[in-house]
């Protein structure tokens, strides 16, 4: 019915009584509600798989499993307020995992960003005819499934079949890539290999959007190519650098897949509580299924990541202005 109506403006121009505006408003509203139906599937699923689990975790984190009586009928959840959170704040293993990952993130993120920026600048400076081929080759690691790239690097590092140990032995070094000292270097290299291409692509995209006449005038003023890259290109893509840096930082704080696979190669160095997410996983499945505590740890980790993101965003944004 609404569809066969004439234009709303015509209706509005004929005020026959006080309710003249209402059909128009109703018509718009009716259409708006119909339009809202298009987002209903998304919104319903969003509530179900984002909001509801989050609220559920908050709720679960308020309980403690207690054995009642003789404990013969299994543990029962009992309301315990913030007890689990108090426990989380005193949990040395969790916080040392957090510190380990935070420190690693602080070192590895800038490294990956710098590497990606250099790649993007080199690609931007390459011959036009060669650009496409290089861009493709540099993106090859992005096309490899995460699990495969980790597996391949674990094998490359492996003392039995990996060529890297033999290579360093030729140079006169005895290297154990899974030793406590080198483990982080090994992992940083893996994450670099996996992530650099994707970040490079985003930065390169921003670089191509810069007006090239800017470089022209800089060249006339006698600026070298290196100087142009440093003083024009990089500042122009500052927003992109910030965004990619923030995203890869958030990603790295949730480190899970890579350390878990490293753990199968070197269980004594990579402990079960090596990263915060691993701790949560461990409490859920290995350490007696303490869901309530794992839920509390999830909430704490979410708050920590939100706080770090906010601080980093605030600081980097201010510095640039």
């Amino acid at each position: 019915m609404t569809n066969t109506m004439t234009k709303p403006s015509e209706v509005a121009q004929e005020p026959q009584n006080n309710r003249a505006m209402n059909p128009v408003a109703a018509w718009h509203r009716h259409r708006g509600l119909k339009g809202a139906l298009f987002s209903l599937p998304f919104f319903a699923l969003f509530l179900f798989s984002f909001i509801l689990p989050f609220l559920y975790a908050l709720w679960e984190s308020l309980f403690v499993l207690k054995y009642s009586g003789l404990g013969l009928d299994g543990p029962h959840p009992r309301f315990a307020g913030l007890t689990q959170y108090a426990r989380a704040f005193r949990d040395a293993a969790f916080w040392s995992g957090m510190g380990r990952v935070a420190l690693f993130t602080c070192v590895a993120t800038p490294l990956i960003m710098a590497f990606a920026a250099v790649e993007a600048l080199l690609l931007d400076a390459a011959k036009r005819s060669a650009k496409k081929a290089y861009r493709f080759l540099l993106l090859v690691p992005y096309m490899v499934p995460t699990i495969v790239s980790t597996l391949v690097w674990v094998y490359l590092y492996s003392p039995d079949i990996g060529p890297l140990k033999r290579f360093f032995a030729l140079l006169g070094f005895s290297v154990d890539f899974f030793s406590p000292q080198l483990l982080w270097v090994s992992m940083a290299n893996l994450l670099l290999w996996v992530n650099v291409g994707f970040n490079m692509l985003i930065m390169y995209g921003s670089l191509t959007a810069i007006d090239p006449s800017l470089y022209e005038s800089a060249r006339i003023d006698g600026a070298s190519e290196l100087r142009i890259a440093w003083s024009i290109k990089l500042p122009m893509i500052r927003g992109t650098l910030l965004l990619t840096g923030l995203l890869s930082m958030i990603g790295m704080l949730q480190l899970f897949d890579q350390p878990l696979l490293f753990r199968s190669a070197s269980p004594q160095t990579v402990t079960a509580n090596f990263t915060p997410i691993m701790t949560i996983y461990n409490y859920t499945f290995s350490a007696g299924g303490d869901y309530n505590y794992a839920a509390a740890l999830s909430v704490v980790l979410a708050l920590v990541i939100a706080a770090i993101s906010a601080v980093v965003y605030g600081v980097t944004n201010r510095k640039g202005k």
Partner: protein
Amino acid sequence: MAQQFMKPRYGKAADGSSTAARSRASKWSRPGVLIGLVLLTFYSIAPLWWLVVSVTKSRVELYNSSGLWFGSQNHIVENFRQLFTYEDGIFFRWMGNSILYAGVGAIVCTVISIAAGYSLSKFEFPGKKIEMALVMVSFLVPTALLTLPLYLLFAGMHLTNTVWAVLIPSFVNAFDVYLAKEYIDGTVPDELLEAARVDGAGELRIFGQIVVPMLSTPAATIFILTFVLQWNNFYLPITMLRGSDKWTLALGLYSFMQTKQSSLFDPTTIALAGSVVSIIPLAVVMILMQRFWRSGVALGAVKG
């Protein structure tokens, strides 16, 4: 777009310049760029070269020969035979599961996201602002943090260890909705919708016959980004799925690495063959649809 800009060639601008800085730049920048790119390309390709070489070797040669070149005899057929017959060909099952989770997940996610993006772009309704805010905020929520709560919720509903435990979360992607909304904002004119309404077309028909055909680019982009995300997904399936018949390729490969430390059977050659096979579908999809995911990545970065 990149090609539209005629970039001045390096070195050219320095022609006729007399300053030392300028001639130095023109002299060294070209080979410098080339050397840098060649080294970086080597770094990206070399590990895969090792994988290709190693998958052709027998177990003995894998441990005893140099990893950089092929062994004395080609063992690739035997390695793949072992992979495909491992536990009655469970590898095919994992492959099928991965294709199911990633394929179905990506298709449903694309449909849902485009419909939601259309709704947010072209209609006014109560709650729209809240919905939009939720979409933006959820960008910043690390998905790994939701996995455990999701597990607890699904466990309560007896959904864990079912296909749905992996599929349902993959249907929802706030970034894809944002991508669709941005694209529709820019390409679907209000006048067109208005004209169709005047002609008496219903909202569902307008969406299906006018709007959707205009959206092949964002649809392909959302499909490929979601497909890659789900193909790579590890934390969600390892949390949700217990039985090996429901596993993905990623979980299967992980189980190969787990066996190594616990038994006498050394699955290294099988794991390598499995790695090669798991790369292929993803690489094929990504190469065929390069144009789309590149534009999606770029759009996300510029606007996000």
